[in-house]
């Protein structure tokens, strides 16, 4: 038996000495640390949630400002949002965009490069860097980043984003007059485009913008396969065919387009011109010999009139000499005054003489042209139209039709 005074002391002492043993102390400290860790984890996560909610609110306000064209104010909100959610990718990206929109390109680039280092495959970052490079006129870098954006990773609706990036790149290349590169991008894009009329129409318009009318026509035709009454596609196809000097095809599409949308004046004008071309072309298939000769005579007369008008404007005077009874009056033409268009004037004078010389053959009543004569008459007509365009500007009406035929004699589908 222990003494009553001692007995309570002994367990107390032994407990105290036990608690003072290093392994016990280390264990107690470890447990305390774990508990404290858990408590702080809870505290931090709660606080972080609050901060993130605050950041979302600030970000939304910034986004509203950005959408309303107030990037300066948006920057303040985005910065504040980033204070509460420092590493957020989207906030940084939006801040970089807002900075770019306010012309702070260096700062914007700094943010974007940070993001790019974190995620070089991110489509949105690459697109933003591409736009920044466009703004700063760094073409090679812009193409590089646009390509990255085209083949990069997008969180939402990746196909649309990639396509839009590629459209943007093509647009940029077009503005840079990098036609072959833009065409190559367009052809790649065309191969992967889903069958959506809007996209195909947009693609066709871009081909058209680049002057690639064959591809443009092809894309419009694809649209029309699904929707024959698509006025935009019809007008586009008509214009593409017209620019390709395929006036028959153009007339077909343009006529339908005008029927569907008579208010489209541009289409109407093109249609009118296409029809004039088809009506005046003497070499179009299925035209009888008399009709052909008739067209040649009309073309010759019209060209003569255009030539004289232009010659007068250029100050070219004619000296008439009386010829034989059979032949028409013969004139020699001289350039009265020197002008900046001297070479053009000399050419016009020469053409006038040629025209006058040929007039007797063409004007003969009941003349039937041999094919080589027909060719030489129309050659002169085409020369006159081309030369007068240089000296006196773009013609209208029948002259315009003749000029178009002159520009591409072999391109007309007859």
């Amino acid at each position, binding site marked *: 038996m222990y003494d009553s005074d001692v007995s309570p002391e002994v367990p107390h002492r032994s407990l105290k*000495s036990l608690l*003072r*043993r*290093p*392994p016990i*102390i*280390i264990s107690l*400290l470890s447990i305390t*640390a774990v508990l*404290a*860790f858990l408590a*702080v*984890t809870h*505290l*931090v996560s709660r*606080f972080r949630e609050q*901060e993130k909610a*605050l950041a979302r609110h*600030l970000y939304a306000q910034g986004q509203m400002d950005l959408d309303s064209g107030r990037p300066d104010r948006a920057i*303040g*909100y985005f*910065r*504040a949002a980033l*204070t*509460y959610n*420092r*590493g957020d990718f989207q906030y940084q990206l939006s801040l970089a965009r807002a900075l770019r929109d306010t012309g*702070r390109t*260096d*700062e914007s680039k*700094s*943010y974007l*490069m*940070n993001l790019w280092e974190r995620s070089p495959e991110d489509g949105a970052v690459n697109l933003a860097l591409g736009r920044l490079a466009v703004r700063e006129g760094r073409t090679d870098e812009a193409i590089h980043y646009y390509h990255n954006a085209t083949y990069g990773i997008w969180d939402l609706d990746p196909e649309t984003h990639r396509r839009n990036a590629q459209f943007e790149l093509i647009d940029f290349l077009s503005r840079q007059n990098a036609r072959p590169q833009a065409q190559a991008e367009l052809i790649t894009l065309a191969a992967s485009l889903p069958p959506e009329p809007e996209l195909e129409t947009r693609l066709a318009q871009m081909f058209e913008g680049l002057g690639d009318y064959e591809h443009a026509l092809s894309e419009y035709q694809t649209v029309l396969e699904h929707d024959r009454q698509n006025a935009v596609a019809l007008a586009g196809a008509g214009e593409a065919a017209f620019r390709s000097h395929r006036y028959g095809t153009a007339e077909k599409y343009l006529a339908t387009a005008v029927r569907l949308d008579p208010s489209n004046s541009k289409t109407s004008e093109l249609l009118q011109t296409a029809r004039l071309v088809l009506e005046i072309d003497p070499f179009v298939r299925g035209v009888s010999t008399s009709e052909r000769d008739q067209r040649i005579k009309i073309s010759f007369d019209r060209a003569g009139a255009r030539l004289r008008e232009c010659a007068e404007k250029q100050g070219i005077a004619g000296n008439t000499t009386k010829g034989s009874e059979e032949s028409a009056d013969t004139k020699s033409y001289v350039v009265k005054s020197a002008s900046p268009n001297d070479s053009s004037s000399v050419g016009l004078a020469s053409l006038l003489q040629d025209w006058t010389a040929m007039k007797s053959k063409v004007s003969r009543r009941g003349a039937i042209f041999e094919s080589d004569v027909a060719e030489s008459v129309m050659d002169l007509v085409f020369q006159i139209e081309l030369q007068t365009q240089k000296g006196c500007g773009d013609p209208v009406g029948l002259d315009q039709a003749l000029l178009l035929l002159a520009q591409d004699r072999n391109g007309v589908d007859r």
Partner: protein
Amino acid sequence: MSDLPQADSSRNDAVTFAPSLPSSATSSVARIPRYPWQGTFREDRFFLMLAVFVGLFSGLAVVCFRLAIDWTRIALLGPVLQAHDLRLLVVPTAVSLLVAILVIHVFPQVRGSGVNQTKSALYIFNGYIPFRTAIGKFVTAALAIGAGHSLGPEDPSLQIGASLASALGRRMELSREKLRLLAPVGAAAGLAAAFNAPISAVLFVIEEVIGRWSAGILGSVVLSAVSSVVVVRWFLGSQPLFRIPAITLARPSELIAYALLGLVGGIASVIFAKSIAYFRPRLRALPHWTQYFQPAAAGLIIGMIGYFGAPQVMGAGYEYMDQAMHDQFTWQMLATLAGLKIIATTLSFTSGTPGGMFAPTLFIGAMLGGAVGGLERHFWGAHLTGSTGTYALVGMGVLFAGFLRAPMTSVFMVLEVSGEYSIIVPVIIANTVAYVLSRSLQPVPIFDLLSRQDGLDLPSMEEQREENLLRIEDAMRQLDAPILDSRESVQQANERIQQSASDVFLVRFNPSGWRSVTRELLQTSLDEGKAELTLGSILSAQPLPVLHPDLPLDVALRYVNQTDVVPVVSRADFGKLEGVISSEDVLSRYRR
């Protein structure tokens, strides 16, 4: 290590003495047997383990402290500080009144930054910092900084860490020596957690608090700093505080631009330090009742600065430093903010509001660096490749070196907060210029100045660093008596000393040990008929201590009383006598 004689038995039978640590660093195991770490668990090992726990707890405390500051700021001033908001006037004033009451009545130990308080604990109070100080510092500093006072969380974190460590050490019943050292260990942990920069924290504590490199404590300081940083990174992320692009100096002449920044920064540091030195004692000399209102008045003025267009100077201002690095401000605005921050911080600090000076120093440095960089690029833009961010970051280091006078910490701090090593050369150059200039214009460093104003004579680390240390070679003299050999007979030795006036002679033992023999002992041996015996056989086995010429003179003081003269020998050959030193020699050198 110990300061007890260390026998170098592998080389010779003499006992050598290495420069030792102060007694505080010695183990107390043998002296205080009631400590539980006897036996298998030595206190040294336990101290190391405890350092890890100090780091963990300090890290957790600092995480909570930073959340408290952020929460207070959002709750009191709103998520975005905007000029012309009335809260900017009301909140700092009202909260400062509350803080003043708490400081005067509940937590009187929490005034100031916390660095000197930790030094006081180390040098005056045997490592004792009341746990109440940690709580008080936490609450009052969070309130003050959150309400917009121009102060930072780093120095309070340092003090909170030190206070936690001290409390833990007392609870563990550590020896007084260990308890004294635990406060700096906690300080390093707190600072490392606040900066998310372990190297800088360790360096700062070594440079400014402990004052010397000591292997005995270095391990613990590093362990605690690293473990606290791990905790902070776990909760708050591991990304560096600031991000700047890597810099490439196009030509070495660009360094002149950074040296110029060092010059401007050095002058700004002196202005900042002199402002605090001028206002602090004057404000403290005002009647006691004014101390209730001094923080409030400071808060009101700072609030007015914010209200009328510069809310950036309120609080620690880290987000604005980041903005400065990203070209958000013109150089004129940056210069204005630097000037306003000096005023605001001087007001906050000298009014006795609890909070640190690290963050404001960095803020002023960043703004000044950005301003100087902007101005330089305006004039010599084509020749300079550094961005505003680069100059702002270098500016931070410059103020740190010039104002806080911690040159090594200032370099590593810049590297750690940016994670960018490429900036090191400009930082070293600019910091050196600022440090040298500041030291020549303001001889007393700010922390020493503050402790002297408080009536404390804490050791000045800068003075210690630059102290002209007396060495043994400065006091030793050549031996004017023959050196005897242990193989000589007593008779031979006696004959050789006849011409000498000395009474004590050194005896060289093979291969290199030393003993001493007196004239009297030789005579006695002769009288006893030991004339043919060798000196080695009649002398005791206990060798003399030996010293080396390069050792500090105070080391000699510990041994000169053990014998008449102490041999000073070459480090390369212990048998080669360079001279001797006695207590008279030491004292006469000190008297000079």
